[in-house]
């Protein structure tokens, strides 16, 4: 095997070897080479320790409400209003079938409304919480870098 510092494909061999992605035969051949070549050995040591160092940046925990927020966004994006879906578990298959039959029979005249209308949504809005949320948002909005009020 050629020196990785001189070989055009040396970079790939170095990265794959230190990432444990080099096939065993080539890895063995490469190990044979680095035992003889101080320059390559030095490079391998540096890359190995970099690989290890980078591993110390541990992953963060995803927020617990990540899925909830995503499903809420998906529900918003879907044509069907989300509050309609909230009521679906309570609908039996028979009720769905009956509703479908009614819908089919009076299709041109009747538009099937979700069980809970916009009024039900509005009822879930708490005016105090909205005011608090607006205050919190104000507080969290980026401060001007040039604000120079005295302490």
């Amino acid at each position, binding site marked *: 095997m050629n020196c990785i510092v001189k070989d055009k494909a040396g*970079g*790939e061999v170095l*990265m794959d070897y230190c*990432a444990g*992605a080099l096939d065993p035969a080539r890895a063995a051949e490469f190990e044979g080479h680095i035992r003889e070549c101080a320059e390559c050995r030095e490079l391998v040591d*540096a*890359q190995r*320790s*970099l*690989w*290890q*160092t*980078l*591993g*110390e*940046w*541990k*992953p*963060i925990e*995803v*927020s617990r409400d*990540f*899925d909830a*927020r*995503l499903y809420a*966004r*998906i529900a918003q*994006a879907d044509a069907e209003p989300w509050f309609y879906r909230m009521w679906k578990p309570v609908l039996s298959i028979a009720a769905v079938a009956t509703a479908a039959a009614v819908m089919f029979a009076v299709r041109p005249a009747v538009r099937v409304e979700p069980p809970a209308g916009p009024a039900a949504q509005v009822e879930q809005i708490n005016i105090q919480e909205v005011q608090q949320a607006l205050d919190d948002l104000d507080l969290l909005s980026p401060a001007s*870098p*040039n604000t120079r009020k005295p302490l």
Partner: protein
Amino acid sequence: MEAMAALERDAQLMLRVREGDEISFALLLERHRGPVVNFLHRMVQNRAVSEELAQEVFLRVYRSRQTYEPTAKFTTWLFRIATHLALNSIRDRKKERSQESLSDELLDGVERQVADQQVSVEQAMVGDVKVQEIRQAIGTLPEKQRAAVLMHKYDGLDYGQIACSLGCSESAVKSLLFRAYETLRARLAHLA
């Protein structure tokens, strides 16, 4: 059925999502939520931004379910979306910051010099200096090099997948990675 069996697990799940099975979507989310959020977090280095971007990634996956074709590995497709969003976000934020600094650089120049000295002393006292240095070293890499290193080191993507995510050739990826690791070896040598 045979063709289905030959497909990778994620692609099978995505095909089920295409057919309306949303439990499969929940399974895909369960498998990839962490890696996507973390890739984005390491790219943009901000939790709120990374989670918003990750939401957008999965929203796009869900929206594309009807047109999904398993032509590439699912992970590659996912990281392609994530990379695209991350690069755009970094560019937007950079633009915003450069506009901000134009307005306040003259005013704050002297104050900042003083503050920088304080910062370096205080930062040295921070518990996790090592991770801070890693974050900083990766954060100062050019964007494409940064994305390539993150996908290679932390997400185990191969050169082909990284190339597909970044929209460049495999040889370009190898060269990006080699240069990035070279820079990182020099910047982080003292931590070894």
